[in-house]
């Protein structure tokens, strides 16, 4: 197969997208790298806005400072090769071309080869009080610290599950906040049970253990196997009510609350492009199909990083490079087979680790769906409550999420279900007593994120 006349396109300038673009450039191609953010790094290595008063990489990224710096600086040597376009939203994929929004102008970009490195957002399970001021997602709490240089409160609680819970608690405590509690819904025993899998990446595990030990040493209360009850407050959050593993009700005062249950991949563009999807029971989510190199079901379309399944930033770097090598190979370029072997071996370890991690920190979906009260708002955009969904189920018996969306409006708002979709899926499946993979997934509609009516079209090919 001869080299495609159009430059390859990479969507997302996080660890996966940057490694992909750099790999393509190193092999003589001139990729276009599109990113919604003003500066490279993705969410994990997000940079503060450019300007005076910059904090050091070690202040911003801790142990990951070297990796973050490497990612931030990776594009510079290839500046003449990589057409890097920050502040550019990809809002549509249609018949072999992307639609881009930048500075109020929309342009169409045709592609022959494309790497989706679209990253992830927080997975949210709503709890009473979650829409109150002072309540953030875990990712949001971390972005506040990294990009804005401020915290979500001075006495904070982090609630949910997953390794991010401990990392953020550590980062907040190091930044001078009082972490009043870390409340993990997963039982501690699960971590022990899945220790063999976690040992696939001993260094990563060691870091996790370090954060946990550090929190303990500095007197940060950590509770596992908890059940969230509600967040309380008048103008803003003032306390969290929760049940400990013995079923006793507890009360923790705070002025900031971060909630998160791991991450969910941003798959709408891959979906719109027509990639085949399968349900992944570990993620409890529909993920685009891909082979071990990152090839999607569509010729010329590749997937890398958390956007194709949550594996973390280190795996994203490996996956980005591997997908780029697959693209090069498919275009007839010569690639180094020993490098491929190294990447695939490392990726296999990431996958083993990820599998254990998702089992050690599971989404407490069943209990949530069973106990969620009718008056709880699940969809903030459209203000749809759990009771609205249950009433819709009683009235129409919707068998899939798209029908539920049509009748109840959940997933119809500005996030198109990116925030409320997981909760809606769990509740619908619970109401029907079926598995969450039996109710399909919300069809994304263009634009995947809002665009202004006053956009000016630009006649670029």
């Amino acid at each position, binding site marked *: 197969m001869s080299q495609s006349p159009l430059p390859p396109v990479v969507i997302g300038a996080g660890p996966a997208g940057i490694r992909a673009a750099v790999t393509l450039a190193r092999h003589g191609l001139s990729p276009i790298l599109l990113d919604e953010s003003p500066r490279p790094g993705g969410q994990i290595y997000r940079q503060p806005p450019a300007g005076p008063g910059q904090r050091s990489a070690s202040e911003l990224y801790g142990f990951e400072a070297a990796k973050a710096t490497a990612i931030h600086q990776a594009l510079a040597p290839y500046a003449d090769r990589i057409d890097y376009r920050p502040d550019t939203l990809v809002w*549509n994929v*249609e*018949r072999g*071309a992307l*639609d881009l929004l930048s500075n109020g102008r*929309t342009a*169409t970009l045709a592609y022959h080869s494309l790497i989706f490195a679209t990253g992830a957002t927080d997975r949210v399970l709503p709890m009473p009080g979650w829409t109150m001021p002072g309540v953030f997602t875990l990712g949001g709490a971390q972005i506040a610290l990294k990009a804005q240089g401020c915290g979500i409160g001075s006495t904070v609680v982090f609630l949910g599950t997953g390794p991010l819970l401990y990392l953020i608690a550590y980062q907040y405590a190091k930044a001078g906040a009082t972490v009043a509690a870390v409340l993990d819904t997963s039982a501690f025993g699960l971590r022990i049970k899945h220790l063999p899998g976690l040992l696939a990446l001993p260094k990563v595990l060691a870091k996790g253990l370090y954060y946990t030990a550090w929190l303990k040493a500095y007197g940060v209360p950590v509770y596992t196997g908890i059940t969230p009850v509600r967040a309380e407050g008048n103008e803003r959050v003032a306390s969290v009510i929760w049940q400990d593993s013995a079923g006793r009700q507890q009360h923790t005062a705070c002025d900031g609350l971060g909630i998160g249950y791991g991450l969910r991949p941003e798959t709408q563009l891959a979906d719109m492009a*027509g990639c085949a999807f399968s349900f992944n029971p570990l993620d409890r989510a529909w993920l685009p199909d891909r082979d071990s190199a990152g090839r999607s079901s569509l010729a010329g379309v590749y997937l890398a990083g958390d956007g194709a399944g949550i594996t973390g930033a280190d795996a994203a770097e490996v996956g980005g490079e591997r997908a780029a090598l697959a693209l090069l190979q498919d275009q007839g370029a010569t690639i180094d087979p020993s490098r491929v072997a190294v990447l695939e071996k490392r990726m296999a370890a990431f996958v083993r680790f990820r599998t254990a991690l998702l089992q050690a920190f599971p989404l407490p979906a069943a209990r949530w769906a069973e106990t969620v009260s009718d008056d709880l708002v699940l969809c903030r955009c459209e203000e749809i409550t759990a009771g609205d969904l249950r009433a819709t189920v009683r*009235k*129409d018996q*919707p*068998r899939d999420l798209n*029908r539920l969306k*049509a*009748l109840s409006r959940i997933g*119809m*708002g*500005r996030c*198109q279900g990116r925030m409320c979709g997981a909760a809606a899926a769990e509740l619908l499946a619970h109401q029907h007593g079926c598995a969450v993979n039996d109710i399909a997934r919300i069809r994304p*509609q*263009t*634009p995947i994120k*809002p*665009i*202004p*009516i*006053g*956009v000016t*079209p630009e006649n670029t090919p």
Partner: protein
Amino acid sequence: MSRLIEADVAIVGGGIVGGSAALFLARAGKKVVLLERDRCGSRASGVNYGGVRRQGRAPQQLPLAQRSHALWGQLPDLIGEDGEYVRSGHLKLARSPQDMAVLEAYAAQVADYGLGLQLLSAHELRQMFPMIGDKAVGGSLCPEDGHANPRLVSPAFSRAATAAGATIIEGAPVSEVEQTSSGFRLRSVAQDLTVTAPVLLNCAGAWSGALAARLGETLPISAAHPLMAVTEPLPAFLPVSIGVEGGGVYGRQVTRGNFIFGGGRGIPHPVSGNAPVPDFARPERGALVNLLQQAAELFPDLAGATIIRSWSGVEAYTPDHEPIIGPSSTIPGLFHACGFSGAGFQTGPAVGAVLADLVMSGQSVTPIAAFSADRFR
């Protein structure tokens, strides 16, 4: 387990027309079975723009539209909910003196039908509707027209039909259909179901041409895909549903603030599908950007608002954009109601009532001769 249902009337298609026919026939005591390939009201009836408008229809449609207008007026009694139906008025704008002359001629032509049209000069338009930009030089207001939420209204017709005693079977695409000595025999493999009935109503929307073809009748039905978009909720700015003479853009603001607007065409989805009628449709980039520009021109204040979603659907069109309603002239017992060409939501309830008339008494109270499929022969 294989099922056989012997009915008085078999209906194919659970859109607003099929649902309404099932409702009126069940109320009249007929044993009705409706087969819907997916979910009731999930295709064109459920994803259309939601205009409930008589203004602008050809005069021969107005008796039907007037009958429907009365039915819309009693919607909660009919289907058990209001479907967000409001009589906001429908304002058709002219962007040139020539277009205004067309609106004036139309008002004169339909003066006897009781639409209550009010022609507005540029000055009157500015005074009554200051949010409309300078592109419009005048307009025609139909105060009792309005809009509703098709996602809620269309499924509710089938639900009401069920409550009235009809048997509605969803997820039941028709695998086989044949004429028998006593009427029709339909089979749905997906439901392992056979339905026999002396009367068959073809309310299958974009799929109605294919259904007729399997019985040996040719209907000139083609599928097309109107394009629509919606903004985030905005402060109330537009109290009336808007159309434009010559087409291009239409819009309405719902109570919760979103501005819903449409114009132009989407494309089949999946694009690579090779079925004669696609399962779904999706927006097309050029048409969408064009629609945004048209909306921004018409409503300058909207320029800073964002759209949060766009969509399309699979709708049946005829060559003259008038529907096909009435008995088949070649197959006794078969009635068609299809090809509404992007304007069937308002008339849908009355079309169902007309079909019930035809089944019950052999003739329609409302004149429908103009909609015979024979006009294409």
